[in-house]
């Protein structure tokens, strides 16, 4: 009986192809909008996730920043002084105080742009001082030589890691020729000599904000070495932390922020320490994407509603046209429930065909849009597709019931005589 009804429904739809197609249009547009926005939303979300994971969403950054004043007149601008900066003692204190909860403190400092040369060949590098935690959080892939070790960090050795990109300019693909050798670097008209201990693989920074591929790559040196180059005291404008496993990062962040501000910046008239949690930025951006998703879903819902009313309307028209047929079926022994099922099935068939077309079109649009936005074509999840098909069926039942019931309740004599 169910298959018979589907056959009857398909015959009816085929006999009015254009009308059936136009009827489905609302459902097609609605469903394709839903599917497309799901694909794009998920794709952008996962891309944002990837980006933040690359730059370390697990870590929290603390910046030296200006205090906020309720009264504007209290604000007096001045340059940062050495005493405003985050000192090594502060960090040692923090490390002691939060022992166990705090996994590591990541510190780095950029010394400046330098030109390195080897046998008349030049390459541009950015000399960057790193502590051991900073190097390990970079997750560098070594192509040649060794990474910086604990002896490098403790002895302020003039050892360095160079990128494969810079190394290629100096000695081609033969990285062996450069490892273990001294390399001269010109920084601010001063000559420094570093011993290259390893070559790391350069990773392009790629993110939804675009990819950066700068000419100058980092030359990593131990943190203390970096400060000794410039003869300056060890101090920072920022640092990052990572919480130990099982420690709530947000709480730890708040605690550290409060601890430093209470102990070191209480009497500072302009500066304080402010934590910037990448996790919260991530949540925020996800929230923004979700809001856009909801807005478009609302538009899609309106389209679906209009489409559903269209289906209902065309079902009423179809039933009026087929009044005699309904009368005949009743004369031949169709129960009211059989007639009702027949027309509900017809509404379901319209909605499901519309839904499937919508899924196909939505998939195409979503893949295209995500390709343009994040250079990666996304597809709808199986659950989304199944959900849309089920939803279309439910839609058919909902909007088909009233007309079908109207047909079922027709008086057989009146229906047979209908002209």
């Amino acid at each position, binding site marked *: 009986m169910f298959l018979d009804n589907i056959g009857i429904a398909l015959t009816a739809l085929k*006999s009015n192809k254009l009308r059936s197609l136009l009827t489905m249009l609302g459902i097609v547009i609605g469903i394709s909008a839903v599917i497309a926005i799901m694909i794009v939303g998920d794709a952008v979300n996962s891309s944002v996730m990837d980006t933040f994971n690359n730059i370390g969403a697990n870590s929290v950054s603390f910046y030296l920043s200006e205090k906020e004043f309720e009264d504007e007149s209290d604000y007096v601008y001045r340059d940062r002084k050495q005493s405003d900066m985050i000192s090594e003692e502060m960090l040692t204190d923090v490390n002691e105080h939060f022992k166990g909860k705090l996994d590591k403190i990541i510190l780095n400092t950029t010394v400046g742009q330098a030109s390195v040369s080897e046998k008349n060949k030049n390459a541009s590098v950015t000399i960057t001082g790193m502590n051991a935690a900073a190097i390990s959080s970079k997750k560098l892939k070594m192509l040649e030589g060794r990474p910086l070790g604990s002896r490098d960090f403790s002895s302020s050795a003039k050892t360095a890691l160079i990128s494969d990109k810079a190394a290629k300019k100096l000695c081609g693909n033969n990285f062996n020729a450069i490892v273990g050798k001294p390399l001269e670097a010109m920084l601010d008209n001063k000559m420094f000599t570093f011993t290259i201990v390893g070559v790391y693989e350069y990773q392009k920074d790629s993110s939804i904000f675009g990819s950066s591929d700068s000419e100058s790559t980092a030359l990593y040196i131990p943190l203390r070495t970096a400060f000794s180059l410039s003869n300056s005291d060890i101090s920072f404008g920022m640092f990052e932390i990572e919480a130990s496993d099982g420690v709530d990062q947000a709480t730890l962040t708040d605690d550290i922020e409060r601890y430093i501000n209470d102990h070191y910046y209480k009497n500072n008239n302009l500066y304080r320490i402010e934590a910037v949690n990448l996790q919260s930025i991530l949540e925020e951006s996800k929230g923004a994407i979700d809001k856009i998703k909801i807005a478009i879903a609302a538009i899609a819902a309106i389209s679906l509603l209009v489409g559903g009313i269209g289906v209902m309307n065309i079902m009423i028209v179809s039933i009026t046209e087929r009044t005699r*047929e309904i009368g005949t079926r*009743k004369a031949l022994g169709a129960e009211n429930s059989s007639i009702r099922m027949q027309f509900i099935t017809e509404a379901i068939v319209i909605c499901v065909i519309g839904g499937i077309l919508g899924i196909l079109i939505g998939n195409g649009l979503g893949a295209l849009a995500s390709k343009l936005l994040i250079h990666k074509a996304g597809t709808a999840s199986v659950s989304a597709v199944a959900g849309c098909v089920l939803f279309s069926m439910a839609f058919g039942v909902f909007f088909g019931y009233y007309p079908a019931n109207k047909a079922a309740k027709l008086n057989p004599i009146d229906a047979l005589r209908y002209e």
Partner: protein
Amino acid sequence: MSGEVIIELHNIYKRYYIGQPNELEILHGIDLTVRKGEFVSIVGASGSGKSTLMNIIGVLDRPTEGQYTLSNVDVSAAKDKELSHIRNEKIGFVFQTYNLIPRTSALKNVELPMMYNRKSPSYRRERAKELLSMVDMEERMQHTPDELSGGQKQRVAIARALANNPSIILADEPTGALDSSTGRMIMDLFHKLHREQGITIILITHSNELAEETERILTLKDGVITGERRGSAYVS
């Protein structure tokens, strides 16, 4: 008149607009008995209540008053669902306007009453083919109604009426829309079914000529049966 009683109408009244100023009584106490295997015709001018009577006999409508016993079952007060089953199993309708389902093959049309009787698709198909070949339509069973002539459509309709082996064929002006030679063919088919298969047929017509071919002629006038006689041209 030897067969068992299949239709028994007793004191049947049909009124419309009951309780309103324009109350209308169409049938004024009809008594009618039809035995198994009879070929009966009901004649009368338009407005005589023929169609109303046929609707009641075919349980498409209920009498306002009176008792209707069909195959020993009182159907006067049956529910809609029971009436559907009675129409499906006991009655085969043949209409003046054929009433085949459009865009649906002859075969599928004949299968319909069996579909509503929840017969298996393979049984339906076999039985429909059998019936269509009985009315000489096996060549055109895949054709849709708009590809068939009037006489062909009516033959498909007759095959459809016979699908569930009904006790009665109710034919309402079956030749009314056909030319005389095609109408002749349809009448011959009824005679053949009556003679060879002993099917009970009630023919509603306004043509005295056709009525004379039947066993018994009932004349309906203004909602009352005014006459009953044997058909002069009936050949048993």
